[in-house]
């Protein structure tokens, strides 16, 4: 199963796990499955059916916005990362 990397600020919603396995053939399906496992997390990354604009998703280090967005196909060994912007400094 593909794995999803969870960023530090969102780990309180996954019981502290930094990676989560999820099922699905596309990024959208994977994130929907993730949302079923962790409904509070879904709220944090989705605004209705769209990803929140301050959250970016990468498949193997590629931004899905120049791939096929939520329709981007993922294979078994792929790694999907949720990357929020880092504010401090």
């Amino acid at each position, binding site marked *: 199963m593909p794995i999803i990397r969870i960023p*530090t*600020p969102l780990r309180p919603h996954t019981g502290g796990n930094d990676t989560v396995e999820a099922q699905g053939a596309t990024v959208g399906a994977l994130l929907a499955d993730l949302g079923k496992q962790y409904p509070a997390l879904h709220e944090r990354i989705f605004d209705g059916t769209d990803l*929140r*604009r*301050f959250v*970016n998703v*990468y498949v193997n*280090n*590629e*931004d899905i*916005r*120049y791939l096929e967005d939520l329709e981007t196909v993922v294979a078994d060994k792929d790694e999907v*990362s949720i*990357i*929020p*912007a*880092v*504010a*401090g*400094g």
Partner: protein
Amino acid sequence: MSIAVDSDSIDRYSRQVRFPALGEAGQRKLMASRVTICGCGALGTVLANHLARAGVGFLRIVDRDFIETHNLQRQILFDEDDVADNLPKAEAAARKLRKINSQITVESVVTDIDHTNILDLVSDVDLILDGTDNFETRYLINDAAVKLGKPWIFGGVIGSEGQTMTIRPGVTPCLRCVVEDSPPPGMTPTCETAGVLGPAVATIASFESVEAIKLLSGDIKALNDELIMVDLWNWSFRRLKIAGLLGKVDCPCCQRKNFEWLDGALGSHTTTLCGRNAVQVATRRSDKLDFAQMSIRLSPLGDVRHNAYMLRFATDGHEFTVFPDGRAIIKGTNDIAKARSLYAQFVGN
């Protein structure tokens, strides 16, 4: 006996001049370069330190804050005397930098960067560096940089993690291509709520500094065109490919040239509440704040209570009353810059 430093000498830079990719030609370009560093906290002090020592000819240091004891853990240009002297960060940094390198020109500007002054602060330099702690100022820098066609380097750090990217308008995606919108106030961790490690900030600022040296010395092909992410505590280093976003995202800033932050259409609006020793900071956003999450983050730092209509938080002589639309009244100061700084630190923007 004191030995005077030869003011025209390039010898003091001999160890970096011997680095082949820089060389004497690159060093001469650095010495003729001008840079504005926006924000002189943890990132900014490391940036200023590296660039002053490397011999960048002109540094403008801009910051709105005064030095406090809890800054000394990571803000490397400051010491306990500066705290006792109640010095603004920009001024204390400039004094130290002039002692480090008397051959360069250092200008300190004690001000709150906003849409009315940013162009004056950056239009006469070759490069803008991000030493800020909030997205509001970063989007403003991004608008100004794209409008003027100037490069800038983004850096952000929380905890042991940081991000950086080098932005060249028209060549790379801009900040708004990559981060289309900032997290709503109260939704993102800040250095105050989540903590921050000095070495993590120093790492990101060092990445920014080496990119600055490449750029100013003319080695454009060596520049980073990815979003670099580092987590020092967990030994991770990632390079996220973002180049493909340029032109793919309908970016209001670099594609449509609609400079909403620079025009003042986006960003907070701040007013002193006369006679009340309080300042109101209003953001122009439609998201509703999550008071439950904010309470969890703020509770280790002071007394925090909330109901459906407001969240009240007291810390270090300041009391915040935050409303669901992100507007806040900060009691305990009449100083707009101080209030905006407190808002960025504890609410986040």
